[in-house]
């Protein structure tokens, strides 16, 4: 594994090729192609319901596409046997939208959880690692609080500490900015930047707050209707030379993304004669 990564530092860490996924009769992805470069912060944006979170679940192997493949560090996630998949997952940190801290355990034990599950480290070593990670997110003092005693922003930072406890190669942030006040938002932004710049962790974030994304992201993929419709640096996308970016970042009501959910003509719904489908 180290061979492939050192040989091919230029090869993207995550390669999505021709991914097609049908969920409940709806095509969530339609031959989707996209790359996530190593050591960068890549944002995946798009209108609600375009399967951005679903894409993250494909990268972690929690879901599989109906066609195409998802390569993570050169390995086809859908083909991996369970054990190898679990080994791969140990190298991926995942920050859930609602933090997903284990409610039975306090902050310290939550961060220690992956260590206790996968290593046989001495108690004082675990303590050092956990406190270091908590220090990094600024919550060392909260180690003995229960998750129910944390604010949303604090819980997200604890979840981040837990996600980086194994120093992963890749962190997936699922909507990291939702429901945060401006102060907490800035803290999370700073953490994402720090983890990427100082530890070189490849970061993928799913979000739709363009203002926050342009602060941290090196690269943005815009997804709509199951396809990648635009890519580039935040500055490039903000210029808006395609109708997609114009609508999404300019906020126009009508555009490629329709305001109306697909439906038969209004007249036929009202039952006017002569226009029945």
């Amino acid at each position, binding site marked *: 594994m180290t061979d492939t990564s050192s040989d091919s530092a230029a090869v993207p860490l995550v390669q999505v090729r021709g991914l097609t996924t049908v969920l409940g009769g709806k095509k969530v992805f339609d031959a989707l192609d996209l790359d996530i470069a190593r050591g960068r912060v890549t944002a995946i944006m798009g209108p609600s319901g375009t399967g951005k979170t679903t894409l993250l679940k494909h990268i*972690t192997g*929690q879901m599989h596409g109906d066609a195409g493949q998802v390569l993570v560090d050169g390995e086809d996630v859908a083909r991996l046997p369970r054990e190898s998949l*679990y*080994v791969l*997952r*140990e190298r*991926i940190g*995942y920050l*859930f*939208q*609602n933090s*997903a*801290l*284990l*409610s*039975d355990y306090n902050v310290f034990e939550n961060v220690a*959880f*992956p260590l206790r*599950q*996968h290593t046989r480290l001495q108690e004082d070593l675990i303590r050092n690692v956990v406190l270091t990670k908590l220090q990094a997110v600024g919550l060392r003092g909260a180690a003995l609080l229960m998750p129910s005693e944390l604010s949303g922003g604090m819980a997200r930072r604890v979840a981040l500490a*837990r996600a980086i406890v194994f120093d992963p190669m890749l962190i997936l942030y699922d909507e990291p900015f939702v429901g945060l006040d401006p102060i907490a938002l800035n803290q999370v932004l700073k953490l994402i930047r720090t983890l990427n710049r100082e530890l070189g962790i490849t970061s993928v974030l799913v979000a739709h707050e363009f203002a926050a994304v342009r602060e941290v992201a090196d690269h943005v993929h815009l997804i709509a209707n199951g396809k990648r419709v635009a890519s580039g640096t935040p500055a490039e996308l903000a210029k808006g030379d395609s109708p997609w970016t114009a609508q999404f970042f300019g906020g126009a009501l009508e555009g490629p993304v329709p305001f109306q959910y697909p439906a038969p003509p209004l007249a036929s719904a009202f039952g006017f004669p002569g226009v029945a489908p």
Partner: protein
Amino acid sequence: MKQFAARLFDPLVDGLADIGRTGWFLLGLLAALPRGLTYPRELLRQLWFVGAKSLIIIMISGLFVGMVLSLQLYYTLSIFGGTSALGTVIALSLYRELGPVVTALLFAGRAGTAITAEVGLMRATDQLSAMEMMAVDPLAFVASPRFLAGVIAMPLLVAVFNLMGIFGGHLIGVTWLGIDNGTFWSNMTSNVSVWTDVINGEWKALAFGALISLIAVYQGYTAPPTSEGVANATTRTVVTSSIAILALDFVMTAFLM
């Protein structure tokens, strides 16, 4: 007509599908069970959660059931002039039938719902997905300890329930109704057998414990991730396990005894 048939059969098909899915879930759970044994601390926590915390309600209920049995059976036996058999009849009713069944129904209400609500909440707040992402199998870490705890706790709770029932029955029969203490015990001890009565009841307890915790964990595990979904799943746990207990009780009684 077609609609009527659909309304009649759809719940039936849904119910069958639910049984089928529970069966599949059981297979996955059994496969994960050996790995679940590597979390003894979780098992201990769950034994506390479903077992020790159910103890008070089980003891109080056992006492009252024994007292009521004593009154009712005394009345019935006195018609035949057989009140000396009171101890025997109380013990046999408790060990073979009421102990396992009443304990199981209480257990479904007390521990089963708690398991469903807890696991459902873990599902709704992505804790189960988070475990998968941390390369920890939730079937082994969450489902197995709860299932095992139910299987272990039920026979112990039934023994406690029966014991309290005997004491309650003794309290009413001997202290209040005035049956001779020696008659009460000697009649019981000469007619109640360890294997066909006490142990058969414990087999039932074991089966009910497995059934309830399977249903409770399954319902929580598959609950829709909304507050309504978790609430409905909790209700379904009580309804499904109550019916399943009584049906299985009939089958086991017919085959075991």
